[in-house]
C-alpha cells in the first residue's frame, strides 16, 4: 500500500459487547486518557472522534460506543452498518460476556460489512485473579473467526492504544473517503416525510 504520506481518511469504528464489559472505559481511556472506576451505563450510543497517524496515513476514527443493554440490541445495526471496523469487547472475569461476544461476532459475520476489520478485546485483564475466560480459549476462537485478539485493561491502559492503532493499520487504505453526511441526508429526508405523517 504505497500511498502518499498525507493520505487521510475517515473510518467508522463501533464497539459492541455485553453491558459492563468496559466499552466506554476503553474509549474514554483512548480518547481522553481518563478512567473512572464506576463508569455509568451508556445510554443509546456515544459518539467520539479521534485522529490517528499511522505510518502512511492519517485516520480519523469515528467511534460509536454503543450501550450494552439488551434493550438497545435491536439498534445495533444502526451503528455497525457501514462501519469499517468493530471491537467486540468481553470481560475476562465474566464468562457470559464472552458468550455474548461470540454472538456479536456471528451477527457481524451475517449482517456486517464483509471487509470489516474486527477485533476481539478481553477487557479488564488487570483482574487476573478473577479470570474466568482463559486467554488461550479466546485466542483460539479469534483465530478460527479471523479476528485479531488482544487482552486489554482500560484501568491500567494496557493495550488500549495498541488495539486502536492496530485497527487503524489494518484498515484498507483504498477506501473511498466516506461521506456519511451526504448519505445520511438523503435517508433522513425520506424518513422525515414519514414523520410528518405520523405526527399530524
Amino acid at each position, binding site marked *: 500500500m504505497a500511498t502518499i504520506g498525507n493520505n487521510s481518511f475517515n473510518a467508522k469504528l463501533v464497539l459492541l459487547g455485553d453491558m459492563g464489559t468496559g466499552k466506554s472505559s476503553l474509549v474514554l481511556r483512548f480518547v481522553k486518557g481518563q478512567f473512572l472506576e464506576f463508569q455509568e*451505563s451508556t445510554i443509546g450510543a456515544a459518539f467520539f472522534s479521534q485522529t490517528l497517524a499511522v505510518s502512511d496515513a492519517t485516520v480519523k476514527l469515528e467511534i460509536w460506543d454503543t450501550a450494552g443493554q439488551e434493550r438497545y440490541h435491536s439498534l445495533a445495526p444502526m451503528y455497525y452498518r457501514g462501519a469499517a471496523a468493530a471491537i467486540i469487547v468481553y470481560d475476562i472475569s465474566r464468562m457470559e460476556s464472552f458468550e455474548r461476544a461470540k454472538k456479536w461476532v456471528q451477527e457481524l459475520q451475517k449482517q456486517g460489512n464483509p471487509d470489516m476489520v474486527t477485533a476481539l478485546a478481553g477487557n479488564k485483564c488487570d483482574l487476573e485473579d478473577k479470570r474466568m475466560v482463559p486467554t488461550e480459549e479466546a485466542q483460539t476462537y479469534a483465530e478460527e473467526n479471523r479476528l485479531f485478539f488482544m487482552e486489554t485493561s482500560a484501568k491500567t491502559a494496557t493495550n488500549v492504544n495498541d488495539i486502536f492503532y492496530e485497527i487503524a493499520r489494518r484498515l484498507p487504505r483504498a477506501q473511498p473517503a466516506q461521506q456519511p453526511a451526504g448519505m445520511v441526508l438523503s435517508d433522513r429526508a425520506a424518513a422525515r416525510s414519514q414523520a410528518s405523517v405520523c405526527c399530524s
Partner: protein
Amino acid sequence: MDFDGVFADPNPQLPDPPPDADPSQVDQISSLTLEDAGDAASDEPTAGNESPPTNFHSERNPDFGNTNRDADPSPAEQMSSLTSENPGDAAGCERPAGNGSLHANFYVGSNSHHPDPKPEAPSRVEQISSLTLDSSDAAGAKRSASNGPLPSDFYLAADEIEIVEEVSPVAGDTAGISALGGHGAWREGSELDGEAPPSPSSSGYAGERGSSGASSGIEEVDGPGTLPDDWSRGKRHFDEDDGSLSWRKRKKHYFILSHSGKPIFSRYGDEHRLAGFSATLQAIISFVESSGDHIKYIRAGNHQVVFLVKGPIYLVCISCTEESYDTLKRQVELIYGQMLLILTKSVNRCFERNPKFDMTPLLKGTDAVFSSLIHAFSWNPATFLHAYTCLPLTYATRQAAGAILQDVADSGVLFALLMCKHKVVSLVGAQKASLHPDDMLLLSNFIMASESFRTSESFSPICLPRYNPMVFLYAYVHFLDVMDTYLVLLSTASDSFYHLKDCRIRIENVLVKSNVLSEVQRSMLDGGLHVEDVPLDSSRRSRSLPPQLAADNTIPEFSLSPAITGGPSGLWHFIYRSINLDQYVSSEFSSPISNPSQRKRLFRAYQRLYASMHDKGTGPHKTQFRRDEDFVLLCWITQDFELYAAFDPLAEKAQAIKTCNRVCQWVRDLENEIFLFGASPFSW
C-alpha cells in the same frame, strides 16, 4: 382581576377536606358496603372457595364501587401483612396490637368518587386568622390537642429524629391511632430502632424519611435541579428485600411488576428477591379484577397502597407519607411514563407473546433515572403542576436562542430544546408538533440522571409518552460548555445523527456568538425570582384594592423588618403557574426556608394545596387561605393563572392578600423574561 376582589366574598368556599379521619366517620362510610369489602379483604389471599360472583353486580355498580370497611382484626392482619410480612419482629410494631383500631379500608371501584379520609385532616382551611394552629407536620410532635394525646416515647423519638421531613398531615390521625392501639411505632419513630441502620450516605433512604439528621438531609435540599451524586447514582440498599426490617420501614415504596406477578422495578431492594412480594401485589389486583372491578387503593393504618394498572404492567406505590391518593397516583403515572420513555409501549407485545416475560433486563442501568424521578417528587413542582419552568433570561436573549432553534426545526428536526437542568432556555417544535410538559419533565430527568450523556455526544432512542407512546424518537444530546446546559434534538429518523450533529454545531456557534451561553451562565448564578425583590410600591397597587382592604394601606410599615425574613408581609415563597402557557415560575427559597426539611415540608404543603384546590369531588376552588404552624398558605386560581404563596405563619391575612396581588403584578411585569412566548408549540 384582583386578588382582593375574590376575597371580598366573606365566606370563600372551603375546599372541605374532611376533618380528621376520625374512626366514627370511617365507620359510617364503611357500613354501607361492609359485606363486599369483607369478602374482598378476607378472601384475598386464598381466593379459592368463596367465589366472588355473588357480589359481582353490586361490585360493578358504580354506587357501590367503593367499598370501605373498618376492618376487624383478621382482615386487618392481612392488610398489615401486606405491607410487612413477618409481624413477629420489629417489636410487633406493624401489627395491630390487640384490639387496635387499624383501619384497613379497601377501596375498589374505578369511578371517581372515593370516600378518602382526606389526609388534609389536621390543618384546616380558615376564614379568620385564628390563633390555634393545627399542624400538618409529620413529626406530630407538636400536634395540637385535638388529635389526642401522643405517647411520650413517640414524642421523644420524633423530636430526636426530626421527622419534620415527611409532612404528613394525617399524622394527627395516625397519632391518634397509635395512641389507641399502641402500634404507632410503625411510623417515623420506628425508623429509629432499626437493626443496622442504613448507611448515612444512602440518601434515597435518608432523603425520603429525612430522619438521619441534617447531614444527610443536605443533599436533597439544594433546591431544584441539583442532582447530588449520592442518590443519582442509582438504587440504594440493593441487599434488602421484604424480609429486611429496614426495607419495611421505608416510607415510600414504588414497584413496577408484570401482570403475571414478576417484579420489574422496585425503588428499594433487589427485584428478584421481591418476587414473592410482587406476587402478592399481583394477587390483590387480579382478585379485584376477577370480580370485574379495579382496585384503586388500600388504606391500612397510616399506609396507603396505590395501584395503577396499565395493560400488562402494574404499578404500585406504598406510602406512609400521607400524600393524597391523587398525588400518589400522579407519581406512579409519571414512573410509568418514565418507563415508556425508555422502552415505549410496544413492550406490551413482549407480554402478549409470553405472559411470563421477564422485563427487568430491559431496564438495566436505569435505576438512576427512576431514583432521580422519585426524588423529584419531593422537590420539583413540575411533578404535580403539569407545567414546566424557564430559566430567567432577557427577552432578546431567549429570542436569539429561539431563532436558531427554529432554524434547525425547519430543517427536519422534530423538537429542539435548549435546557439548563430542568429549566428551559428555549424550545421549538416542528409544525403542529407539541411537546407536553410531562414529557419535558421525563426527558430532562432522563438526561440529567444519566451521567453518560455528559461524556460526549450521544444518540439514543427515546419515546415521548404524551407525544406518541408507541414509537421511538431519536435524541441527539449534547452538553454544552456551560454547566448543566444541554441541547436535545429529536428526530424521527434513526440515521439522523450526522445531520443533528451538524445542527448542533450550527446552534452552538450562534449561541456562543450571540452571548446566549454567557447569559445563561449569569442567570444560573443570579438565580430566579427572589421574594425580597417583590416591589413594595403599594401606591401603584392600592388602586385596585377593594374598599374594605384599602384601609390597611394606611399602615405604612412592612417594608423594613419583614424583608429580613423573606419578602413583604412575611412572604417566604411563591409559585405562579400560567395556565395558558403551561409554565410556572417559582421563587428562590428565602432565608426562612433555607433548611432542607423546611423546603420539603413546604413542597408537600404546596402539593396538598394543589390537590385540594383541584379535588374532583369538591373542587375546583378559587381561593384558599390556610394557616398552620409552619406557614400561611394562600392559593388563588383564576382562568389565567394559579398562584401558590407561602408566608410566615404569623402573617396577617389582609397583608398577605395584598402581597399576592403584588406578586402577580410583578410576575406580569417580568413575564417576558421568565416565560417562553411565541415559540410555544403547546397550544395550537
